[in-house]
């Protein structure tokens, strides 16, 4: 039996314990990340054994393509449309649920339910909700005296329709994040405010909202980033239509890779999307650094 020092034995054990995960990460995470980079400079259709290096041609073709910019616009439209609504709704939910009331766990669960249900099922249900002739949404509109709309068949309303559904789906998740933020605010702050005679609205405006700064920033970033990568709803509900009004970058990527077999092009789209998300995240950080309060 080889006698190893304690250090070496630990290292050997660590190697054994880490080998499976390291292997999987290398093959399916790090590998693809690097592969994608090189792929974006190539032209390959997956069938022929020739991959030709074409430099920046993929990126150039995208920059020159109005379709690409339409998709980019739609993606930003969807993301920017989702953020305020789902944050506001999540915040309201959190503020309501945060009180010591009976049934708060029940309401918290109800609000979170859309988050756990699969996007495909939700998409199909909402297609029926938005049905121009027999759907609930139009029934709701008529109740408040508005005209029924064609929703997903209307090039102007299709995207807002998707945004509304997305807000509905994610508000519960933001609620949970806000709840944690709320519970991290020290109660002594509220007590001090009460002594000074502050009412609910003023303590919200001067304590709650500023102290929620970091949480709100975090939620904004997460919501925005996830919305930029939307795919399932588009694939299920509109397939990019009508008139490309709901075609987004992930959907374009999917089409380029799996319909047109232009792997290099798809990789370039992916990197563009990454850059957009990255830039906006930096911008958000700069913007919020100037506004965040921290306790102490």
């Amino acid at each position, binding site marked *: 039996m080889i006698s190893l020092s304690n250090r070496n034995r630990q290292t050997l054990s660590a190697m054994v314990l880490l080998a499976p995960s390291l292997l999987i990460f290398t093959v399916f995470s790090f590998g693809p990340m690097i592969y994608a980079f090189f792929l974006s400079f190539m032209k390959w259709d997956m069938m022929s054994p020739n991959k030709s290096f074409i430099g920046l041609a993929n990126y150039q073709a995208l920059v020159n393509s109005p379709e690409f910019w339409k998709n980019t616009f739609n993606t930003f439209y969807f993301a920017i449309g989702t953020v305020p609504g789902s944050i506001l709704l999540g915040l309201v939910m959190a503020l309501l649920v945060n009180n010591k009331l009976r049934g708060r766990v029940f309401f918290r669960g109800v609000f*979170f339910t859309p988050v756990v249900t699969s996007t495909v099922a939700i998409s199909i249900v909402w297609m029926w909700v938005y049905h121009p002739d027999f759907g609930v949404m139009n029934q709701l509109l008529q109740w408040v005296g508005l005209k029924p709309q064609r929703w997903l068949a209307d090039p102007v309303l299709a995207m807002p329709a998707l945004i509304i559904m997305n807000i509905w789906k994610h508000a519960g998740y933001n609620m949970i994040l806000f709840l944690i933020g709320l519970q991290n605010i020290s109660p002594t702050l509220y007590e001090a405010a009460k002594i000074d005679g502050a009412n609910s609205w003023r303590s919200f405006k001067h304590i709650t909202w500023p102290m929620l700064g970091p949480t709100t920033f975090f939620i904004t970033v997460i919501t925005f980033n996830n919305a930029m990568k939307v795919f399932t709803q588009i694939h299920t509900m509109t397939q990019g239509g009508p008139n490309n009004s709901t075609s987004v970058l992930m959907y374009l990527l999917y089409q380029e890779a799996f319909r047109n077999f232009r792997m290099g092009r798809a990789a370039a789209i992916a990197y563009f999307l990454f850059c957009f998300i990255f830039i906006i995240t930096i911008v958000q950080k700069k913007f919020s650094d100037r506004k965040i309060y921290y306790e102490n």
Partner: protein
Amino acid sequence: MLVQLTRQSDQRQIGKIIIKIVIYTILSLMAVLIVVPFIWMISSSLKESAELFTYPPVWIPKRLAFENYVQVFRIAPFWRYFINSGIVSVSVMLLQMVTSAMAAYAFARLVFPFREKLFLLYLGTMMIPSQVILVPAFLIVSGLGWVNTYQGMIVPHAVLAFGIFLLRQFYMSIPKNLDDAATIDGCGTFGKLFRIYLPLAKPAFMTLALYTFMGEWNRFFWPLVIVNSQKLYTIQIGLRYFMSSEGENLWNVLMAASFVSILPVLLFFLFTQKFYIETIVGTGLKD
């Protein structure tokens, strides 16, 4: 003066009750709004076809058409889709638990060169933008000959950095005295893992299991591109293709199919709500 004081505290009591009523009202209204699509789904799933196409829409069907649910399984092999989703979700869940348990232990309790850097690298995988690796990962899986196979759906998701992070936190919270006592009793590294750390980590495992199972059950893009034969469809893919092949008229059956596909996760969630919500955010929520 006593009378005046009493009036003040009465007013405060009434004020509190009014606020409570207002909060409950708003909560209930919001809950209704959130739940309406689900009710619409269930209500439509129990309608006869003729009842679907009426205006204004009917909320309570004249007769509960349970045969729609039978139709779901007749028109498409949903039982098959269920089994596939089950196989994939359970396999991914088990693999993620195993790899997380192992890697987390190494990071939490062993000392070896580059430990911190390697851990950062693992965390870094959480930063990798998912859309960037989708196409190349597909090409790699294709190169391995794993397109249209179970392993193609399972193996790329066998490790979850978040799971490793979670378990490492948990392991680090176990007192070191136990370690030392075990060493004195002659227990080696792996002995400690199996006899101390794994048994104690059961709560963490449970929460991780739920999180990964539900995430895998609902996954769409990856199975969509990996699988192209109907006998391997997961329930999400099957549902999606069911919708496009059945067209406009079978909304009731479609709603039944949708309900059936969310039911397992919904039940899971309802019974373990507390666990799940706490995991997905990774920290504790006070009740």
